């Protein structure tokens, strides 16, 4: 009898030991991946404080700058007019988010909850836009922007983001998942369609609007090709495209390039650290709902 018990506890102990080993391996993999994710950012920050001499010193290789100099940041800010770039980027993000959320909220509701002739045909426009690679729109959109005289203006940057097929799809899904009773109740209380939408339904889709807003903001911030094409002038363009321009200008002065990259990344990183939950969930729920 005691023999069996001993065997059992032996077995239990070995299971437990095995579990601990597995856990250690899992943590080791996670920590290794985390380091891999962080090293490029750390190296960017460390390099941005170095002199060119320090950054190219190989024997001995140095990790930390001898002194935390601000020189690179000062030079880069002087040559790059970062306040203007920040402003352009911010304004473009703000306008794109506003347009996308506003138009998609209305259209999404109509596609989800109202019956009208032509609805399916019009919705196929939304699906078509999402199925086609975006580059197919670029040349004609560029031609339109240049005909309107919007090259090197904020309107040129905003242009492709005036409406959002993706947002319309996302908001339609959100409204479809809401219960029907609320609408019925509002209607019985005498609300007409715009009233029902604005006071009852739209507030309930708020979390999806926030998700769409974050999604739109992050992708507007990351966009590179459109600002390069439509705003080649370094003063009217966005942070991303100015960095691309700058890379040619500063050639191999990596500490200055890293300083510029750091300045360009910083606001988004700060926002991300503060609102990480909203960021991750906003992008995941939007990205996953296609």
């Amino acid at each position, binding site marked *: 009898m005691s023999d069996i018990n001993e065997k059992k506890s032996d077995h239990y102990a070995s299971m437990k030991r095995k579990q601990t080993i597995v856990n250690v391996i899992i943590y080791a*993999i996670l920590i290794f991946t985390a380091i891999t994710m962080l090293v490029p950012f750390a190296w960017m920050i460390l390099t941005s404080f170095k002199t060119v001499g320090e950054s190219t010193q190989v024997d001995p290789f140095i990790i930390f700058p001898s002194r935390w100099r601000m020189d690179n940041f000062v030079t880069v800010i002087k040559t790059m007019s970062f306040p203007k770039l920040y402003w352009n980027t911010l304004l473009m993000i703000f306008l794109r988010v506003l347009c996308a959320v506003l138009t998609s909220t209305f*259209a999404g509701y109509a596609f989800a909850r*109202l*019956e*009208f002739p032509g609805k399916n045909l019009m919705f196929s426009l939304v699906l078509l836009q999402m199925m086609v690679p975006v580059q197919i729109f670029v*040349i004609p959109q560029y031609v339109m922007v240049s005909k309107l005289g919007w090259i090197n203006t904020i309107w040129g940057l905003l242009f492709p983001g005036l409406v959002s097929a993706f947002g319309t799809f996302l908001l339609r899904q959100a409204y479809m998942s809401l219960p029907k009773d609320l609408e019925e109740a509002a209607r019985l209380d005498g609300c007409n369609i715009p009233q029902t939408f604005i006071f009852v339904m739209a507030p309930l889709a708020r979390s999806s609007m926030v998700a769409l807003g974050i999604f739109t903001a992050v992708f507007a911030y990351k966009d*590179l090709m459109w600002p390069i094409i439509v705003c080649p002038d370094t003063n009217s363009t966005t942070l991303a495209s100015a960095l691309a321009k700058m890379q040619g200008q500063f050639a191999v002065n*990596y500490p200055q390039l890293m300083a510029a990259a750091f300045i360009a*990344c910083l606001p988004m990183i700060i926002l991300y650290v503060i609102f990480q939950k909203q960021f*991750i969930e906003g992008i995941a729920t939007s990205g996953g709902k296609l």
Partner: protein
Amino acid sequence: MGKKVTPRQKSECLWGWIFILPTVIGLIVLNFIPIFQTVWQSFFKTGDFGKGNIFVGLKNYDKVFHDGEMWQSLINTLKYAIVEVPFSVVIALVLAVFLNRKMRGRDAFRTIFFLPMIAAPAAIAMVWRWLYNSEFGLLNHILGTHINWISDTKLAIYSIAIIGIWSVIGYNMVLFLAGLQEVPRDYYEAASIDGANGIQQFFSITVPLISPTIFFVLVTRVIASLQVFDLMYMIMSTNNPALKYTQSLVYLFYKYSFTQGNKGYGATVVVVLLLIIMIITAIQMIAQKKWVHYS
């Protein structure tokens, strides 16, 4: 005949159209008409000095077929996709499974893995270019090598794919985490009572149950990776000997349309890209029937 139109139906029709009108007008002007314009443009050649549009019929397509640069860039794009997609999907899936339980540091790991997603690709590419630097780069120093990561004609495209993997793992992982939350816990409990170990559980429970999510991530990643542009544009300077072996289809589209001003040929490249994406997506849609389980 003729159903009576109630005031309610009238009102829905009116407001329905008012609500969708801005979006519909926008989509028609910004997207629907441009599709045809791009296809139309691909039958034209831009004249010398960027002046005039000369109708050339299918000549651009004929040229595409015999254009070595074009074929090479198709190969580059496919190489990039074949490396980036499987690695980023598999690594992300494994990480998501590791994080899909109560554990210390779960949120911290998730936040760190997702970090590359919110950085501008332009900045990321600059940083990686510096890490890859053959003389002074961190990577060669750590490995103790002297590899020309981004100027070796054979290696460069894979070096770029590594940046792509690094950038997108966190995004894929978060999508997988959302999918994993739908898998009922008792499945795993039942399996471990039956003596299935973690790896067996992964293949017999996790993968089949989240196969719709895996399929979704695969399809969207393939489409996105075939459109890769930012990394090539930022990493490869125009005098890099490996440029020819790394430029993607979208890079060529950009180069022809906006650097060389030949919008007709640029449009042709993008139409070809559209066809390739449609074919590959259709193949995936057919293949999914073999392995995706919808509950």
